[in-house]
């Protein structure tokens, strides 16, 4: 019965091809925009989690100040942006005491020295000059493509490891390793070039590594005339299973150093991800909600088309009733038409969104991802809308008196 309902619905939709396609347009636009937005959000989340995986799940990030407040269960309750602007509370002493802890395999303090460098007669002002220890290379899992990272003995050398974007802009096709450029008027030698990192829309370590220049710690202090502050410390734990134990020890150690004050924040990578996921989810929901309005408009279109169809096909309804169709069977037939209209619209909308995804991937930096759950939710929404808006016309059809309907030619 369902199958023949479906076939009948398809037949009548096909017989009014233009009207049906225009009707579907509302659903198509609605579904394709909702799917696109959801897939952009999903893609963003994936990019963030990939960045996090670049560092590995066994890395803790210590930041100055109380960046986020946490609930008792450890989940992030709120973000405190003012903390980002205060002077850093992290010290070399903190770094030293963390290094002594059991289970810690690498400690990389990061200080932002300056934002500009010079090369020949040019300047670049959109870069991050960061001083850190060779441990950063361990935390980043040795992503040096050309040359090498500096070693502990180089701590006061004018060496630099540069990001791939800087290498391209400054040196073009030339091998950058061995070239020199200037930071605050001091000459630096390029020791290594990082391989490209995931272009981060949201960077978990706060800087874009493709635009970063890493210099040794003592050099950093010298260049900044000791004004450099430790913005954050990346701590790699040797055994991920002991992450929480190490975290507690860290907390205890730092609190002792900071005279019992909690003016620092230790974040697990997954927490960083959660914070950004929450933000992305909220934004996605709001924008999809706006796009969903077009779905309602599409639903009204379906209702309108079905109402016209019901009055045009009054004679047909009469004949169907004369040959024994019950009111319920007529109702079901028109509900099915609404459902097929919206379902086809939904499928086309999803197909459009998939095509749009390809274009976005080719022409933009976005990496949208359409997951099965997005598709299921989109289809579910389309079907629900189709059925809901078909109820009124279908009832109208079902309630027609057979005689009145037959009198209509």
């Amino acid at each position, binding site marked *: *019965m369902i199958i*023949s309902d479906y076939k009948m619905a398809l037949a009548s939709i096909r017989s009014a091809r233009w009207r049906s396609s225009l009707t579907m347009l509302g659903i198509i636009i609605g579904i394709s925009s909702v799917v696109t937005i959801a897939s952009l959000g999903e893609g963003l989340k994936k990019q963030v989690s990939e960045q996090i995986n670049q560092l590995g799940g066994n890395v803790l990030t210590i930041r100055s100040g109380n960046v986020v407040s946490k609930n008792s269960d450890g989940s992030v309750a709120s973000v405190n942006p003012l903390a980002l602007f205060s002077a850093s509370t992290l010290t070399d002493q903190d770094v030293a005491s963390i290094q002594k802890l059991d289970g810690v395999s690498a400690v990389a303090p990061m200080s932002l020295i300056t934002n500009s460098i010079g090369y020949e007669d040019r300047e670049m002002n959109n870069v991050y000059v960061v001083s850190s220890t060779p441990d950063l290379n361990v935390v980043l899992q040795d992503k040096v493509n050309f040359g090498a990272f500096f070693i502990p003995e180089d701590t006061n050398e004018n060496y630099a490891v540069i990001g791939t974007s800087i290498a391209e802009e400054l040196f073009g096709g030339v091998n950058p390793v061995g070239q020199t450029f200037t930071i605050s008027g001091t000459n630096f030698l390029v020791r290594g070039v990082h391989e490209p990192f995931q272009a981060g829309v949201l960077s978990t370590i706060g800087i874009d590594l493709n635009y970063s220049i890493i210099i040794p710690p003592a050099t950093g202090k010298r260049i900044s005339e000791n004004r450099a502050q430790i913005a954050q410390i990346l701590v790699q734990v040797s055994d991920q299973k002991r992450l929480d134990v190490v975290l507690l020890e860290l907390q205890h150690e730092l609190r002792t150093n900071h005279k019992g004050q909690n003016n620092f924040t230790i974040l697990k990578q997954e927490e960083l991800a959660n914070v950004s996921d929450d933000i992305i989810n909220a934004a996605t929901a709001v924008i999809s909600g706006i796009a969903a309005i077009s779905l309602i408009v599409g639903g009204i279109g379906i209702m309108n088309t079905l109402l016209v169809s019901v009055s045009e096909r009054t004679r047909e309804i009469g004949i*169907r009733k004369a*040959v*024994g169709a*019950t*009111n*319920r069977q007529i109702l079901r037939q028109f509900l099915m038409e609404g459902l097929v209209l919206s379902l086809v619209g939904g499928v086309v909308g999803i197909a459009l969104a998939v095509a749009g995804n390809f274009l976005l991937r080719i022409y933009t930096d976005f990496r949208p991802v359409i997951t099965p759950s997005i598709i299921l939710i989109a289809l579910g929404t389309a079907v629900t809308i189709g059925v809901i808006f078909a109820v009124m016309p279908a009832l109208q059809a079902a309630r027609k008196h057979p005689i009145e309907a037959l009198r209509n*030619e």
Partner: protein
Amino acid sequence: MAVIELQEVSKLYGFGDATTLALDEVDLHIETGEFVAIMGPSGSGKTTLLNIIGLLDKPTHGEYVLDTRYVSRLRSGQQARARRDKIGFVFQSANLLPRLNVLENVALPLAYKGTLPVRRLKLASDMLERVGLRDKEYFYPKHLSGGQIQRVAIARALINNPTIIIADEPTGNLDSGNSKIVMELLSEIHRSGNTVVMVTHNPELTRYANRLLYMHDGTIVGDEKTKLGEVAKGIKNVYFTDESSVEEHLAHGVATIMREVPPKELSSKKPKLPKAQTKKPRTRKRSYKRSKK
């Protein structure tokens, strides 16, 4: 045993001053296997009677027993199912759904019965064979002639093996050649044991019936057994006493002639009908009261 039994069935349309009494306490028994022709002037209640017999409408008063079952008070769902299983309809025109092909049109009643598609189409195909239109299975109604459409409609009416075939002016839109084909088909169906109730304006067609009802103003004023193959005698007496030949009447369409004759004049001629004494026509504008036994 009567397959159809109407007991004092009345049908009122409208409210208040606009009330029309379309059927007035009609008593009627139709036996299994009868071919009943119903005639009468326009507005005399023929279609109303068929609609009630065909369960498309409910009587305002009175009882209807179909196949020993009281069906005048059924709820619309039960009514639809009874209609599906017991009644086959052939209308005057626009019988078929334009969007379905011939085969699907014939199979339609089976779809509402829940028969599986493959079996449905097989049965429909067999039925089309019976009306001689097997080669038109995949045609759409707009590609068929009027006579072919009526034959498809008859096939559809037969598909559920109904108790009665109901035909309201089935040849009303056809020329005499096509009328003959359609009537021969109905006649063959009748001979194979089916009950047929047909409204017609064409006296010629009473030759296919074995009983003739004559209606006037919502009542049955004439009820005669007729011989198969012969035009009913009473009808001949009433309508063919003037000079013009039967052929001329057929050419002009008897229906138009009947509409032109004022009902009063018709009723004055009525005594010539052999069995017209069953019920005298009454004056209409009386207030209606349900008479309960």
